[in-house]
């Protein structure tokens, strides 16, 4: 019975996309579908944290942005001049930072009492100034090299698909750091700490031009699929368009989008399969046991904090992968566009609406909420026009209402979150 229901729900979702395809255009439908796939992966990552273990992470934006950085650092060609000018300095600064941290930890372990705080404070201050002294000239050297075109170190020049994995690793690293600090304390502390780290990650990406060009953005990333213009000049593609009886140009754009869909769907299915396997394994049962009764699980000898750390890292890594995929799809990295409402809270609405604890639910939520989010904008504008159609042209209230219609989306998403949480906390596809 429930299986039937779930199939129906997914069929309904694809039906909605098909309506867009027939009604607007297939190109629009595929654009929405591709972002649905990425959203579903992000929702899966959050579901691993929240659904499996009850960890509340509101820094999803930061982890997704780390994935985006990975796309830049992996795929862009290295800027040789900049490497020559400043790579050594940056490397030394990183070593100096590492030494400072290690020395502080060592001092805190070895010393006791008042001397402990004094000496570790002194180490931090000294380390900070030494690091800055090496770091600053290196940064200005790098940023001085053709600032309008590069002004950063560039990347490794590898295929961009590699960055999906690297993005996962970056996010996992950040998650380890946050988890080490905040897990094991009150549950709210993780939320506050993740909120903080995500704001900081975005601030770093916006300001460290040597790494990511900051708000100057990195455009023209490599693509894992063919470019439209290449396809339009390829013989086999032209003949294929001929046999299908479509226009070469519009078919090339659909073909490219479909290739992305195929790639993304493969990743989604792989992660979904792994998540389902994990959830049904003894490990998954243990996680749910910890979530449902922490004390009992602890009494049974489970190391709750460690397991939480593990699951927090895994979930964040999945979000990082999705973040790298998103930047790949955009073809550019724009730190200024990361905002918590779109990248953190929207994902939460997906997980809660879909059904926390159920991977299929998270996927459905990702699809549905992304679809609603996209279609709410024209719908809201249409609604506002309809409401205000009785008012005269140039009426101040009318202008204000029409101008403010986009902000309705936030309110609607918040309402959906609150209503689902209140009346149907198990979501569309409840946990089995």
């Amino acid at each position, binding site marked *: 019975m429930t299986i039937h229901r779930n199939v129906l729900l997914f069929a309904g979702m694809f039906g909605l996309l098909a309506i867009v395809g027939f009604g607007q255009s297939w190109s629009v439908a595929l654009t929405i579908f591709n972002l649905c796939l990425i959203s579903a992966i992000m929702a899966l990552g959050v579901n691993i944290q929240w659904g499996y273990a009850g960890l509340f992470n509101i820094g999803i934006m930061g982890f997704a942005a780390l994935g985006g950085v990975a796309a830049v650092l992996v795929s862009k060609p290295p800027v040789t001049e900049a490497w020559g000018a400043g790579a050594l300095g940056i490397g030394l600064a990183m070593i100096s930072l590492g030494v400072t941290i290690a020395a502080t930890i060592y001092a805190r372990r070895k010393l006791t009492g008042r001397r402990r705080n004094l000496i570790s404070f002194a180490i931090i201050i000294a380390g900070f100034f030494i690091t800055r002294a090496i770091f600053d000239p290196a940064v200005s050297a790098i940023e001085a090299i053709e600032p309008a075109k590069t002004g950063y170190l560039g990347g490794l020049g590898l295929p961009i698909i590699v960055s999906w994995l690297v993005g996962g690793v970056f996010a996992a690293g950040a998650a380890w750091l946050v988890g080490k600090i905040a897990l094991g304390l009150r*549950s709210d502390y993780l939320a506050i700490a993740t909120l903080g780290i995500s704001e900081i990650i975005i601030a770093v990406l916006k300001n460290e031009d040597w790494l990511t060009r900051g708000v100057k953005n990195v455009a023209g990333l490599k693509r894992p699929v063919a470019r439209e213009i290449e396809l339009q000049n390829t013989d086999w593609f032209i003949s294929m368009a001929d046999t299908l009886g479509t226009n070469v140009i519009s078919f090339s754009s659909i073909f490219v989008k479909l290739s992305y869909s195929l790639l993304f769907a493969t990743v989604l299915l792989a992660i979904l399969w792994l998540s389902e396997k994990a959830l049904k394994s003894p490990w998954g049962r243990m996680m749910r046991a910890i979530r449902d009764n922490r004390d009992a699980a602890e009494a049974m000898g489970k190391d709750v904090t460690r397991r939480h750390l593990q699951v927090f890292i895994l979930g964040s890594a999945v979000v990082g992968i999705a973040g790298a995929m998103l930047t790949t799809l955009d073809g550019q990295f724009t730190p200024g566009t990361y905002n918590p409402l779109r990248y953190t809270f929207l994902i939460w609405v997906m997980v809660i609406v879909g059904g926390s604890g159920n991977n299929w639910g998270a996927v459905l939520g990702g699809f549905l909420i992304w679809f609603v989010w996209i279609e709410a904008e024209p719908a809201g504008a249409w609604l506002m026009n309809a409401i205000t159609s009785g008012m005269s042209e140039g009426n101040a209230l009318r202008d204000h209402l029409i101008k*403010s219609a986009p902000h309705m989306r936030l309110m609607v998403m*918040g309402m959906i979150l609150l209503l689902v949480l*209140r009346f149907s906390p198990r979501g569309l596809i409840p946990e089995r």
Partner: protein
Amino acid sequence: MEDLLNAIILFSNFVLVPATAYGAQLALGALGVTLVFGILRFSNFAHGDTMAFGTMVVILVTWWFQSMGISIHPLPTALLALPFGILATIGLLLATDRLVYKFYRKQKSPPVVFVMASVGVMFVMNGIVRFIIGPNDQVFADGERFIMKARDFKASTGMAEGLTIKVSQALTLGIAIIVVIALFWFLQRTRTGKSMRAFSDNEDLALLSGISPERVVMITWIIAAALATIAGTLYGLDKSFKPFTYFQLLLPIFAAAIVGGIGNPLGAIAGGFVVAFSEVTITYAYKKFLRYLLPENLEPNSLVQLLSTDYKFAVSFVILVLVLLIRPTGIFKGKVL
């Protein structure tokens, strides 16, 4: 000697005075968070947007007053509008409590569910504010702008450096002191305040002694609404009003509440100043300051800024992390676990 005085004046002008005002604003915000935490036992993520909502109402009423020509020159008209903002925010918070949080209280849901609900509330409030007033900067300060202008100070003292004190800064400190005294008098001396403290200390015992939990919760929301509106308005007068900035204030406010010991009002005040002073001293460029103090051959060429101002959130975060690592209960032994 004169160099030393100049250095002190410079430091006061760019660090002491602004940080004191900012600290008072953070302290008022953190007091609201800490009170809600003490009574309802969850971190209220909607607090920043509650501040934005209250300030928005104050701004709208201010504009209305200005259009009617009502003013209390030299003070900003916003002070006159403040009570209206507080009333509207009280209404909003009581309505949210009835519609959202009450249900979970009845269910005895775990704190994380409350936190999540508060995130939903934040979303909705954010939407309301942007819908009504838009996402852009609004300046609503009027009346006299300065108590002391840099030029006048220089003229009267003959110093090279000037000291500026804005009306908004003096108002912030004055109002914050009045509010804090009133709040502590209420918590320590009145029957209701005592019942609130009892409820915060031990809920079961408070219930046994006949304290009505719903009443305590209601009063908490009323106080939180007043604190949020006052903090938000003072911040807006001092800097400017932008909905997204208020959302971002959440992090320093939480840091302040946790540093001081969450659930402890005294701690929230101390925490506010700790966070504000760290933020301002760490992001201040000391070049000119050091030029006054050091002999000529040691003068720095760089800005001598520890961190760029873009990283001020990192400061709150680092403070937060240090507290969580070293003393999770905070300076004044708040609640933990």
